[in-house]
């Protein structure tokens, strides 16, 4: 069983995991939550983009250019497979999201 090496790197894993439940996210949101510099985020995003997992778009809002990231269908499928492998290896399923958990 092989874990996808493109995803199985700390920063790229965080990036994909943050993006998975979202339609898209802005550069600053990802940078702040992964806690990396702009250049590191750009580099990791470029690696995912070259693998076909990530789509990067630039938009102008209120006169400022902003970069938005979203996962491609291929990226989502790859992440699904990656998580399935992880669950099998660790021997437990993912916990339900925090908001769905009953106290």
């Amino acid at each position, binding site marked *: 069983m092989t874990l996808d090496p493109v995803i199985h790197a700390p920063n790229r894993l965080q990036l994909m995991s943050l*993006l*998975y*439940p979202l339609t898209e996210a802005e550069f600053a949101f990802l940078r702040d939550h992964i806690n990396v510099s702009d250049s590191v985020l750009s580099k990791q995003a470029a690696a995912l983009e070259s693998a076909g997992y990530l789509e990067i778009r630039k938009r102008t809002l209120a006169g400022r250019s902003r970069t938005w990231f979203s996962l491609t269908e291929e990226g989502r499928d790859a992440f699904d497979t990656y998580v399935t492998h992880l669950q099998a*290896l660790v*021997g437990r399923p993912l916990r339900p999201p925090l*908001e769905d958990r009953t106290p």
Partner: protein
Amino acid sequence: MEELGTGRTRVWSWALLVVAVVMHEVALEREDTGWLVLMPLAQLLLAGLVVGPLARLSRRDPQPRMPRAGLLLAFAVWIGVLVGSVVGLTRGFDALGLPVPAVLAGLVLIGSAAAATGPFDRLKARLGARPVPAPRAGPRPDVRLEGASLNELSPADALAEIERTRDISLRPLGIPLWSWPLTILALMLVETAVGQDDLLPALAYGALLIPLFALVLVLAVRRTPQIRRPLPGMPLTARLAGMAWIFVALFCVQALPGAFSALRAPLPAVLTYLVTTALVMVIASPLGRLENRLRTRAKTPA
């Protein structure tokens, strides 16, 4: 149907929505039972087509994942029932001759929607739950990690990291409490607008509704300028706020043609609907920019 795969609402879906509104108006004009039964059914079908792109977006929900056709059908039935409830309740109160305020009907509908959301979520979970691999007996398989830097992340760490970051993305951002009084105020305005015989007061009430509608729309749909979530992944409060405003929009469709009729110029409902939608879009955009600017300013040190 493959067009739905892009996850974006297509132009034709808006055209279908307009057709559904026109059919709704026609059904209300007819006293024939057949029309009153067939029209909601046709609307239900159209609603299913309109909701298709939204349902497709729910594929972005991490787990459980529901089959596309099942989700589409469930959404169509769900929204069809809600729309039918609005029409049915209004007509039912009229038939009884009871001037029950629209705000009461709105509250009942919001309660019903809240009750309906629970079973819907359970249905979604049941249909979409993926089989979880059973824990393996004996030694775990070897993991072949490629690259030295990957060794620092064990599978257990990776799984925990996925759970942590996913919870960040799904964290409820919350709908402010004041959006609920706004919703009730809007329902009262609609009720008042419906009762007006004169055009100008009715239009004035309608004009008041539009910014309220846009404001809650911004909160319920955009909510933050940094992320966009698929609609089904929203917290329950956001979904309820969104639904409440769909009811308001439906009442608007009812109220504005009445105002035009008072002027003896019965413009088609579709025209008023399009004007209202355009105004909402025009107002929602500056509000979104204002919200964004305020957030940016709050973050910047003085």
